[in-house]
């Protein structure tokens, strides 16, 4: 208003000093340097407020990770490191083009500035696109934020690509617990072992029957003679006696593949060529371990409130960051338009500089979010 309306007579004095003002210099600044410095301090202060704004979320993150480390470990396997890393690269490139645009604006090359800002916007849209793929996956698996957290069990346990790692982790815990049980409650451990042994024995007998069968003369387990039964049983027990419980010997549990309930199928296949006591024994332990792993995994499933907190924090942090990306696109679009109009020159390029600074901060926040959410080990 002040600059557009012709001031009445008395105000002329005040205006007269500024007839030499270039058009891009606001009336209340003395010179270009003062205007640039004011804007620069302003944007830095604004960035400080932005950092403080995110600090609340980082603080909540720290508290929850401290209180529930296992939830974070468990949940982060459901985030895709690949997409996250790709997005990090996209943002880093966009920061480069933004910084480059500041330089070209400073040199007065408005065409190149507009081009580089356009590339920055393109990267920003790329980031949002990748993010929406990730978000879509989360909602499809029922791992949305808050009340949208309603995971389908098969997605939580079996079909996720990280199943192997996850079960490996559960196996580690199961192994520790079995060893603990063996030391502290030998009779319970023996009972569990016995139960597994019965199971293995049944499988071994079935395998034996199958191996004795011919097409004409099928042999069932019931047809096996007592002598054959005793032989199979003796092999298992001999192995048992030879190796003791020896659970600790098996340090690394084998990774279970998705659909681990097909375990028995594997037993048959293995039994076809080998039936050494060694294999029998390891099979018993594997069966026990599998049983225990499922217990551990099901315990994870029993903590939906905390797991949902992870996804809530994930969505809150990345969502707020995403809003900032959208704001960045608008701001960069605005300076790009101004560059296309040729408004910038060596004495006036502040707007590009400020917007680029903001964009670097958005980038930097992602640089923190990526390891904090995706790379938890």
């Amino acid at each position, binding site marked *: *208003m*002040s600059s557009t*309306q012709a*001031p*009445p*007579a*008395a*105000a002329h*004095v*005040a*205006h007269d000093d500024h007839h030499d003002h270039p058009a891009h210099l*606001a*009336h*209340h*600044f003395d010179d270009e340097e*003062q205007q640039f*410095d*004011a804007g620069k*301090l*302003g944007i830095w*202060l*604004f960035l*400080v*407020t*932005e950092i*403080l*704004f*995110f*600090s*609340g*979320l980082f*603080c*909540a993150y720290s*508290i929850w990770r401290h209180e529930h480390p296992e939830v974070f470990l468990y949940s982060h396997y459901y985030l895709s490191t690949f997409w996250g890393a790709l997005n990090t690269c996209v943002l880093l490139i966009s920061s480069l083009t933004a910084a480059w645009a500041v330089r070209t604006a400073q040199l007065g090359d408005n065409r190149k500035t507009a081009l580089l800002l356009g590339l920055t916007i393109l990267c920003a849209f790329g980031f949002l696109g990748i993010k929406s793929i990730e978000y879509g996956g989360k909602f499809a698996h029922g791992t949305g*934020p*808050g*009340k*949208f957290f309603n995971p389908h069990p098969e997605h939580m346990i079996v079909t996720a690509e990280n199943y192997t790692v996850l079960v490996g982790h559960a196996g580690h815990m199961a192994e520790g617990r079995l060893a603990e049980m063996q030391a502290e409650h030998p009779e319970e451990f023996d009972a569990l072992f016995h139960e597994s042994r019965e199971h293995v024995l049944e499988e071994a007998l079935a395998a034996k029957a199958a191996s004795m069968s011919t097409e004409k003369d099928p042999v069932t387990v019931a047809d096996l003679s007592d002598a054959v039964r005793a032989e199979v049983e003796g092999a298992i027990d001999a192995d048992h006696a030879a190796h003791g419980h020896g659970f600790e010997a098996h340090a690394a549990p084998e990774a279970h593949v998705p659909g681990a309930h097909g375990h028995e199928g594997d037993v048959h296949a293995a039994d076809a060529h080998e039936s050494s006591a060694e294999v029998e024994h390891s099979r018993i332990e594997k069966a026990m371990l599998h049983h225990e792993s499922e217990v551990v995994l099901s315990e994870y499933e029993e903590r939906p*409130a*905390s797991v*949902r*907190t992870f996804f*809530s*924090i994930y*969505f*809150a942090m990345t969502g*707020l960051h995403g809003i900032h990306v959208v704001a960045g696109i608008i701001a960069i679009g605005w300076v790009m338009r101004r560059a296309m109009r040729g408004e910038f020159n060596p004495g006036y390029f502040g707007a590009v500089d400020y917007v680029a600074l903001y964009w670097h901060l958005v980038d930097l926040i992602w640089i923190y979010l990526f390891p904090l959410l995706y790379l938890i080990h």
Partner: protein
Amino acid sequence: MATTQTAGVEVHRPGVTPSKDNYLNHSKGLMSWLFTLDHKRIGVMYTIAVLAAFTLGGFFALAVRTELAAPNTGDGAWQMLPSGAVYNQMFSLHGAIMVFLFIIPSIPAALGNFVLPIMLGVKDVAFPRLNLFSFHLWILGAAFFLLALATGGLDTGWTFYTPYSLEGHSTSAVIAATTGAFVLGFSSIFTGLNFIVTLHKMRPTGMTWFRMPLFLWGLYATAVIQVLATPVLGITLLLLIVERAFKIGIFDPSLGGDPVLFQHFFWFYSHPAVYIMVLPGMAIVSELIGTFSRKHIFGYRFIAMSSVAIAIFGFFVWGHHMFTSGQSALASTVFSGLTFSVAIPSAIKVFNWVTTMWKGDIHLKTPMVYALGFILLFMIGGVTGLFLGTLSTDIHLHDTYFIVAHFHYVMVGGTLWAFLGGLHYWWPKISGKMYSEKVGVTASLIALLGFNLTFFPQFMLGSQGMPRRYFDYLPEFQAYHVWSTIGAYVLLIGLVMVAYNLVMSMIKGKQAPDNPWGSNTLEWKCSSPPPHHNFEHQPTVGDPYDIEGYVYEPSIDGYVRPDEAAVETAGRS
């Protein structure tokens, strides 16, 4: 300098510059106000807006006090409000509106916007568009509060404590009110950011940091808090909204969240916000005391630095709101100790004000009466704060009327008194008109009486165990409640007189001189009201408190400086 045209003859009257063009008549029409970039008009719009909010919040307070005039049962029982739920909404909206819509923006955004650039000797704040935007955000925030009122009423108290704010009866009211506070937070951040940049980058030649008037120091310290604390409130309220809407489980204990975390976040902002409320008030009083004691301010650097110290200390004491929230004993002890440290810079200010008045020529003009009222009320509010900062006594006094009385003494006795003092002080500059001193002083004293009558009995109530926020009470408390309610109406009378006085001044007040009080800060060196660009000649900057050269000139009812007038007349001819 001063010329009036009377029948074609130029009459030179030193000390009066009735410039034909001033910021009020520079352009016309409602739009020229609503979309102005002129800091003075934005300041005036803020003043009107925050006073409207104050009126609304005041009515809620009167509803609460009227309800509490008698218990709901027994002899002489009385129940005005339809239910306890409505009562809860009354005090919640009273608190939220007063804090977020009135007190926080009152001095910085309303008076600060008007005065800061002129006092600094510049044409405007660094970012005039941002300044206008922050006013528009205020309007938007206020609209959200009205929406909360319309959608079932907020009943959480102004603090929005979880878990109640997550399960209280009206989701839309909680979300509307917290959205409003969130938006107002950004309004406050942008004002603070603007002031910091203006003070850092736009000080004219000669205006060194230690030549800045103390009001600007106070606004600077305030702005630092606004910029550093408010974003945390922003994210807290945002999380609360998301928690209420989507049940994300950050604050909600039934989902594994931590309600005490909300308290930490909330007070991390809201305790420093107490200093957003009182620092600008102290800064105004620092201007008033020197001017109306006709003496150079005593201990300029100590007053300036104590503002900064309060701003810094203010960030480390938030835990004293949570002594009974299950905070660890160690944390409570540390917070208690840090809380006492705030008393040091606060006391430095009071000592310097008193020393400035010592052997001064005290003129009991309306602004000075408010300044003295401020010192009295702030002393009571501050000292009772020590009772609450002490762990053992706080356990007894927590959530009683004692704390209600304490923070009203600080926020109303502090901020409102300073705001009214400042409003009367700068009124001649803002409106160009003089108000009636007689009515002004009388209104101030009536308000002071009413205020003390309202809140002093509440110290008694609280120490005897009357809890805050209760709809009903035992008959033994009634005498104090009756005094308190009577006091509230006396305060109302005082405030109505203030409004009457200021409105009447615009209708039939005398033309204000450039410098009605004999102060040496730069805003008194331009005409009343100021021209559109604040100064017709760039003023020379000197010691802002060098006021002894000013002489009272009865013909204009203002002050002139003979040496300066002579120089100017010489320069003119």
